[in-house]
């Protein structure tokens, strides 16, 4: 679902139908600019959806396991 929405937005970015449209939205924003401003908001909605539906919980659990953790100040081998 997240991937499908991503691809949809990916395609929606290419708004060729507004390329030469100089009309103004709300009396001051060129329509081509207003469209992309809304696009930015849609991106935030997509990523909010992704964070709550497809969050990689397992990565944090794995990262916090201490078994083979190498501490930051441990000397690195000069391989």
């Amino acid at each position, binding site marked *: 679902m997240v991937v499908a929405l991503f691809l949809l937005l990916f395609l929606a970015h290419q708004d060729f139908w507004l390329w030469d449209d100089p009309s103004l939205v709300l*009396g*001051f924003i060129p329509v*081509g600019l207003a469209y992309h401003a809304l696009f930015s908001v849609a991106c935030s909605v997509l990523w909010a959806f992704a*964070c709550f539906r497809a969050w990689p919980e397992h990565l944090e659990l794995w990262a916090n396991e201490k078994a083979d953790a190498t501490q930051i100040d441990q000397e690195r081998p000069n391989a």
Partner: protein
Amino acid sequence: MTDLSLLASSGEIASRTPLTVLSLYLILLLGLGVISSRMFRGTSQDYFVASQSIGPFMLLMSVFGTTMTGFALVGSSGKAFSHGIGTYGLMASWSGLIHSAVFFVIGIKLWSFGKKHGYVTQIQFFRDRFDSHKLGYLLFPILVLLVIPYLLVGLISVMKVVQPITAGMFPDLFSLPDKMLPNGKSIPHPLSGGVPGWLSGLIVSCIVLFYVFFGGVRSAVWANTFQTLVFMVTGVIAFYMIADQLGGVAKAAEIVRENAPGKLVREGSIGYSHFFSYLLIPLSVGMFPHLFQHWLTAKNAKSFRLTVIAHPVCIAVVWLPCILIGIWAAGLYAAGDLRIPPLPDGSGPNANAALATMVGTLVENPLLSGLLMAGILAAIMSSLDSQFVCLGTMFTNDVLVAAAGKSRFDDQTLIFCSRAFIVFIVGVSYAMALFLQGSSVFSLGVWCFSGFAALFPLVFAAVYWKRASLGGAVGCILATVITWFYFFYQDIFLDAGSGSGEYLVAEVMPVTFIFLASASGMILGSLLSRAPSEETIRKFFPKRNQS
């Protein structure tokens, strides 16, 4: 409306209040550096990754502040001045989609590797992942050389912003000769009496160095948070003030419609494939070494959520006003109501100065003018600090410690070496910025981002493709270096893009071909060389039940 040139010619000294406000802001920033340094634990881990203690809000502010540099304010308004509204779609909306995707798909993974295996720099990760110590020595100079144009973007932006806003403040100290018009008449130089670029660049460099030296990346994160809030708020104020002076947003749009209607559309300035090919540029965030370091400062993976979600809207909050101000400047300029300082060679208006000229000319309240100048510099400095810290971190960890071993250095020595390298690079960048002041901030930024974006296959394959091997990594890096230099040479030295406004190859951005070469190098190099060891696979591709 205040005419800067008239101020300069009349012998009147322009109000120095904006400069006083800016000075107070910079003093505040220094104070913040001192306060944040009290939290500094004195260890190299704290200096380099703030002991992985940064929560969601500060992570958002520091990551966002780091990615928004002079490019986002000075470059975007300048590009909109010359190319119109399409500038937003080229960078801002693509970045909203792609940046967050990279944070989600790459950033969290790299954070987990950093947490698990104790990495401080991305080179440490690549060395381990591709099981080659020498790979770090190949990658280090390339990353440093690519960060330098990024530093230049910041420093040149500072130079371009301060001088127009302070024009007329020091008519005796920083006077410039009158300009001769083609009709033989001479007019006062619009920048006369303004703080020159060499001085503003030097002061900003020293201030950023100061607070970075105090507390390393922790100071940078604190300063970024503060500065990001400042530039977002002041950007909105600038927008309101400028619109108000023009008679409202509708009147401002009308000025553009009447005098520069081409700026309201993309037809004639940006082609379909040109527009589409910009999607590759934001991939650069996957390879920015300073962003990698910021990712590692996160307290936990969940701290990324706010950054992933809010980043696109934050970009819109900054870019939308800048684009509108840029096209309004184009309308006023075309109507003959705004005098934009010329390029050094006199070939036309310097688009980089569009934002500063609008602020300097239209914001008549000197207090607000000073606040706006502080806001613009905040955006620039919030990137410079991260880049400074990152360069020092890379030098100490990827060169010194990697070559001689950690046991040869105590924490104090490491921090000293880091600071010395930072001073060296800043000195080089400052000198280069003085010579390149006339360069387009947008173009310089795009070339820098193109290089990092072309290296994206390296990090993507390292994280997701088990078969990605050392041969592939070397192939990817070499293909990037060769093709990047080839196209850069064509554009900058042979001026291949002159006339069309931007250098395109077969109607698309050169990054398209650099990226294809880089991805091909990764795939072919990996398939033709020995696969990674089982141990490496286990280390970086844990089975799900293992995770």
